[in-house]
């Protein structure tokens, strides 16, 4: 049951990623990104990462994607405007992508991953509480740095996107 679900969600994610790469219009790529983000969120739920799946759906699919769609609306002359790469660029990029994919897949399938003893693996879904506790104890410094970063990004984005007088 679990492996069927994995293959379905992985298939959805991969198909949507292919739509992103090969679609001519950027709005279709944004819709493909929605499919990939949703499929990956389902994979998170499958891998017992409840909080992460929820965050993925809320922040990514709900926030970042809307931001991207707004960006498309504000910056394209027509919603179907498309710029195509030259034939040489497309061929070179495809070759590099194929080399990357085969190389990484060969590496990860050949590497001797030592699986830990079964009792150390995540057997039941971890409580959201545990992630929150670890955020506020072990990872307190990155957490605070991230909040400062968000403030800086907020000010910076408002400054960059202002209209010139």
């Amino acid at each position: 049951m679990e492996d069927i679900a994995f293959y379905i969600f992985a298939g959805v994610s991969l198909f949507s990623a292919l739509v992103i790469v090969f679609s001519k219009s950027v709005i279709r790529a944004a819709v493909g990104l929605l499919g990939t983000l949703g499929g990956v969120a389902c994979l998170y739920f499958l891998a017992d990462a409840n909080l992460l799946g929820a965050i993925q759906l809320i922040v990514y699919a709900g926030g970042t994607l809307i931001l991207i769609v707004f960006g498309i609306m504000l910056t394209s002359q027509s919603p179907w405007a498309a710029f195509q790469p030259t034939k040489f660029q497309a061929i070179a990029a495809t070759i590099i992508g194929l080399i990357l994919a085969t190389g990484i897949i060969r590496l990860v399938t050949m590497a001797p991953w030592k699986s830990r003893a079964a009792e150390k693996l995540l057997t039941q879904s971890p409580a959201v509480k545990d992630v929150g506790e670890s955020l506020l104890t072990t990872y307190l410094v990155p957490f605070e740095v991230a909040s400062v970063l968000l403030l800086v990004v907020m000010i910076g984005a408002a400054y960059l996107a202002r209209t010139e007088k």
Partner: protein
Amino acid sequence: MLAEIGLQHYLVLSALIFSLGVLCMATKRNAIGILIGVELVLNSANINLVGFSKYQTGQLDGHVVAVFVILLAAAEAALAIAIFMNFYNNVRTIDVDRGDELRG
């Protein structure tokens, strides 16, 4: 049916999505298409983190780091869109090949 789902399934899926993201970044000439490629790459990194967390370490560290990655992706998208709008105001297009003012 294929083998039982393990770490390598997650790693292979992540490798494929990573390559597609790099391909997207390399082929798109629309700046927002490139941003979408970056999001794909960050998502593939998160799949790796979750897979290692479940099958390798059994700890929650991977989940916490993935939360930070999502946070950084959101911040990066906000800034990138602001820069693209500035670019669009100056050049009247979103085609990145037109942003060649610094070319010697």
